[in-house]
């Protein structure tokens, strides 16, 4: 595996994105803003205080993570699938010195880059709202990268196993939506029934949201190590899978 050649694949996607970003940047950025404003102020009007914060303070660090998550997911499901199947970009790339693993690594890193772009924009916006209260917030950037790597890998796995592009609906409805809703962004999961609390322990987004909240307000507790450990375990388990599964699907 040669990182420079993987970078060439990343660079190809960046070149295309640079031409098209105007149309996608606004949309991707609009949705998290809607959540923040509608729920933060709308629903927040009815909630006096949650874990010692206003409601918008409570949800903002989580929105950073969910934006990063969805950015990587869109890119590595629909984006990668179109390149692999419809545009036959994979065929074109593999006729050059770039190997299959380098191609997959390029896709993975590009998905992560999308997380970084969209996550960072949300950080800037919420800091304009005055919702960043600690210098620890600088660590949100590496955290977004971890978030991007996890969900780019998970999405590439989905891309490797879906029979067709319509099947991504299952992935979004049955996997990502529950991950998003039960991640502790909008309400603390601990107050839910026991089974939900137990299930949410395997939700990688919940651990990312916990860490994000800790960084945003500079309140690092003992749970931090536990959350970070789970995130790292996810990284180690997930990252090799796209390489194996996409190869099985694609190479004859």
């Amino acid at each position, binding site marked *: 595996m*040669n990182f*420079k*050649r993987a970078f*060439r694949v990343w*660079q*190809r996607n960046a*070149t*295309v994105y640079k*031409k*098209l970003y105007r149309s996608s940047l606004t949309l991707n950025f609009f949705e998290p803003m809607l959540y923040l404003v509608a729920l933060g102020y709308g629903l927040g009007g009815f909630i006096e205080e949650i874990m010692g914060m206003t409601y918008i303070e409570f949800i903002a660090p989580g929105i950073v993570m969910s934006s990063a998550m969805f950015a990587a997911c869109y890119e590595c499901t629909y984006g990668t699938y179109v390149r692999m199947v419809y*545009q*036959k*970009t994979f*065929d*074109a*790339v*593999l*006729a*050059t*010195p*770039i*190997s299959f693993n380098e191609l997959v690594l390029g896709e993975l890193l590009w998905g992560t880059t999308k997380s970084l772009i969209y996550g960072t924009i949300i950080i800037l916006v919420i800091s304009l709202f005055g919702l960043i209260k600690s210098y620890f917030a600088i660590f949100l950037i590496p955290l977004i990268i971890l978030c991007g790597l996890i969900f780019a890998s998970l999405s590439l796995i989905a891309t490797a196993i879906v029979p067709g592009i319509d099947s991504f609906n299952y992935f979004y409805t049955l996997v990502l939506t529950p991950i998003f809703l039960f991640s502790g962004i909008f309400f603390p999961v601990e107050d839910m029934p026991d089974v939900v609390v137990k299930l949410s322990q395997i939700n990688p987004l919940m651990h990312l949201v916990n860490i994000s909240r800790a960084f945003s307000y500079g309140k690092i507790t003992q749970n931090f190590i536990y959350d970070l450990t789970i995130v790292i375990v996810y990284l180690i388990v997930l990252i090799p899978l796209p390489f194996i599964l996409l190869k099985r699907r694609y*190479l*004859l």
Partner: protein
Amino acid sequence: MGKNLTKYYKNFKALDSVSFEIKEGECFGFLGPNGAGKTTLMGMIYGFIFPSEGEIKIFDIKLNDKNLPQIKKRIGVIPQDNNLDPDLSVLENLIVYARYFDIPKKEATRRAMELLKFIKLEEWSNINVRKLSGGMQRKLIFARGLINDPDIIILDEPTTGLDPRSRRQIWDKIEFLKHSGKTLILTTHYMEEAEKLCDRLAIMDKGKILVIDTPKNLSDKFGGNLEHVYLNMTEG
């Protein structure tokens, strides 16, 4: 160059113990009906499909995972399918492709402009490839396959689906490459194309090579023109 190559797809034998040798500087054609195994064989030569059995040697080096990038640097592939980047312009398509070969930007731009002149698309360099006609896109794919100045050029059905004029233009370019000493490997199911361009031909059917010879010898040996030879040997 290729020795006892066999490829199974599950239980289907797409290639059945195929052996051949291509000489430096010649234009070697694989002729056969659809499904004869031509594209599978091309995929093997550029390391995209792994043989189930047998081996391939290119520049006297046995192909493996390790040396594949080095070998592919010297191969140009002109695929059957259109796999241009539809969001990019003509020039950008060439530059992005040149990057995969680690060609520096300045050099890539110089080569790209030269190639666009070669295929007479230089006035289209900033146009999005979606706006190009099928024939023009084909020519661009042709040019793209030459951006690394390859020693071996693989042309997989280079003129399938083209109008007669575009077809002649592509043939002229192939002739030009031949005269500049490149090794050309071509698949086709057009008799006329094979006869006009190839120094030697392998006729394939059902995953096997039936015969390898020059176009002239083939028609002398089996009588009639090449089209008769082909139709007699292969089953439709």
